[in-house]
């Protein structure tokens, strides 16, 4: 199948008609270049919005308590509401079907030390599910587990920066950490995409905290994620019914905004998702527009090339070239030019994006980039379009009578 002579013919034709080849190639390269850059920037903008939520699970609901702002059921305003383990159990019992992961949170501030290094950190006493809510990534060891809860073990999972601060160059995993005078064994070290503050946290079991710091049943916050198969409206309703039930349970006025606060990510996510849909449409239109411009460009050039080569085609036919030979020489040339320059446009486009990333990231465009598969399919589309655009006039040219082509001076 591989016909060396045919390729020799084509490369000679390309080489000897450089202006023509460069012009055709430039169109394709430029279209792919624009496609890559525009798409990359649009993606970057999208990433910026995604990143705002990447830290926590996007289907989270946070439930916090405060003081009542309204009198209700014979009780004065200003009553402090505090969740306890039984409230946690109640939510779990009542709404379990809609819950994916669930955890309580108790906030503590501690002075943590290891040997001579001491520093102040936030401690969160949590359930094992907390890991999924916070998208915590284990670097070493494990997270808090059920056993810890049951046995109220003195174990801690520390952030990467805590390890860096206190253990310097040594490994923290397996060593002990002193939290306000109590020794905890470090069973895990984690990282988190949410930034430095998230990596300066220490997690301990919720039951341990309740036992050691006050010996009570209080919890500061209940966090959960709703089942991911809920759509936004279902999720918003779910959050609202939790809020309503808890308000009734604590005898809080329905319109009290402070006593029980339910923060539902579904509400924010709904807006972000709508924004992303609009972005996706814009990206699609940009991509399609650029591709169409490229297709029109390459089509015009192919028509021009065939027109310019009419006489040559006539000569070749008079010398015994079959219609197929004529079509293949023109088409293969088109394919080679579009492939090479399409690839060139791709490389330059990706290069420009890389190079411009620092500048773009200062302007709220995060990690601008484009999937290789996407840009390759765009290039293939353009090659296919160039081929088709070349095929029709080439086919026509292969059919014209040589005598007509030869008269074309």
């Amino acid at each position: 199948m591989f016909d060396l002579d045919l390729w020799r013919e084509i490369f000679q034709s390309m080489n000897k008609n450089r202006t023509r080849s460069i012009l055709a190639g430039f169109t394709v390269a430029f279209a792919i270049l624009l496609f890559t850059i525009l798409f990359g920037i649009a993606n970057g903008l999208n990433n910026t919005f995604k990143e705002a939520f990447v830290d926590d699970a996007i289907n989270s609901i946070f439930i916090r308590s405060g003081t009542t702002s309204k009198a209700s059921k014979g009780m004065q305003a200003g009553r402090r509401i505090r969740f306890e383990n039984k409230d946690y159990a109640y939510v779990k019992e009542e709404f379990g079907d809609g819950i994916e992961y669930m955890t309580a949170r108790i906030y503590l501030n501690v002075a943590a030390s290891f040997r001579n290094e001491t520093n102040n950190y936030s401690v969160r006493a949590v359930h094992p599910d907390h890991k999924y809510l916070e998208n915590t990534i284990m670097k070493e060891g494990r997270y808090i587990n059920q056993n810890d809860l049951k046995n109220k073990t003195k174990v801690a999972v520390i952030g990467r920066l805590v390890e860096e601060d206190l253990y310097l160059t040594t490994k923290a995993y397996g060593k002990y950490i002193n939290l306000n005078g109590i020794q905890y064994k470090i069973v895990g070290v984690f990282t988190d995409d949410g930034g430095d503050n998230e990596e300066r946290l220490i997690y301990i079991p919720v039951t341990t905290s309740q036992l050691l710091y006050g010996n009570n049943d209080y919890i500061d916050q209940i966090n959960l994620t709703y089942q991911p198969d809920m759509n936004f409206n279902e999720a918003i309703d779910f959050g609202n019914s939790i809020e309503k039930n808890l308000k009734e349970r604590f005898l809080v006025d329905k319109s009290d905004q402070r006593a029980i606060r339910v923060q539902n990510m579904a509400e924010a996510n709904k807006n972000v998702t709508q924004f992303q849909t609009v972005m996706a449409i814009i990206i699609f239109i940009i991509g399609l527009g650029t591709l169409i411009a490229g297709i029109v460009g390459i089509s015009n050039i192919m028509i021009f090339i065939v027109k310019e080569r009419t006489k040559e085609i006539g000569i070749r036919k008079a010398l015994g070239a079959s219609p197929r030979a004529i079509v293949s020489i023109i088409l293969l040339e088109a394919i080679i030019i579009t492939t090479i320059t399409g690839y060139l446009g791709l490389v330059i486009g990706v290069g420009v994006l890389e190079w411009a990333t620092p500048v773009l990231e200062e302007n709220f465009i995060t990690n601008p980039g484009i999937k290789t598969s996407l840009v390759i399919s765009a290039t293939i589309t353009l090659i296919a379009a160039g081929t088709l655009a070349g095929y029709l006039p080439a086919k026509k040219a292969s059919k014209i009578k040589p005598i007509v082509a030869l008269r074309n001076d």
Partner: protein
Amino acid sequence: MLKISNLHKSYPIGDSSLHVLKGIDFEVNNGEMVAIMGSSGSGKSTLLNIIGILDEYDSGEYTLDGVAIKDLSEKKAAVYRNKFLGFIFQSFNLINYKNALENVALPLYYQGLKRKDRQEKAKFHLEKVGLLDWAHHLPSELSGGQKQRVAIARALAANPKLLMADEPTGALDTTTSYEIMEFLQQLNDEGKTILIVTHEEDIAAMCKRVIRLRDGVIMEDKIVEQVRAATAHV
């Protein structure tokens, strides 16, 4: 070698049609050197195109080397053109981005010869027209006479049965024209059958037979005393 009988051809012009060839009959035998003459509009170019399988005819018969040329597919026509015919044009029709050697080798490429064989044959024919030293020059670097000699070498390369020349000297000055004719006569002496369309009497006189066309019919078909180009004075 070539037999044409009762050949008709007309071109549609709007609603009516223009009857260009109105029953042409003639035969060409091997080794002949025939001039086809006629004023413009006489149908001589149309006749040449039909003989060259560059154009189709409406009715009549045309056989070339025993093969009936009628209703050929494009592919078949291409094969016959390549196998039977060598073309020489008034405007040379060399491919401008190919050098002399590559131009001569082109019909051999379409014959499917190997690159090495093509090069060898093309060199042989270039040497025959005395342009081996110019093998690697582009057409734009050659004079008119040299271009036509490259075109002749190209027409000869595929070793055709019939050499067809359409006003081969039309774009050349008289001295160069006679040089070209001298070369064509030499080829004819070696046995090549040659058909030349011309409107120049002195060129026609250098052939062995002259066919005159007028208004689509043959007016005159006679054997002439060949004037040798080498002895003709400018």
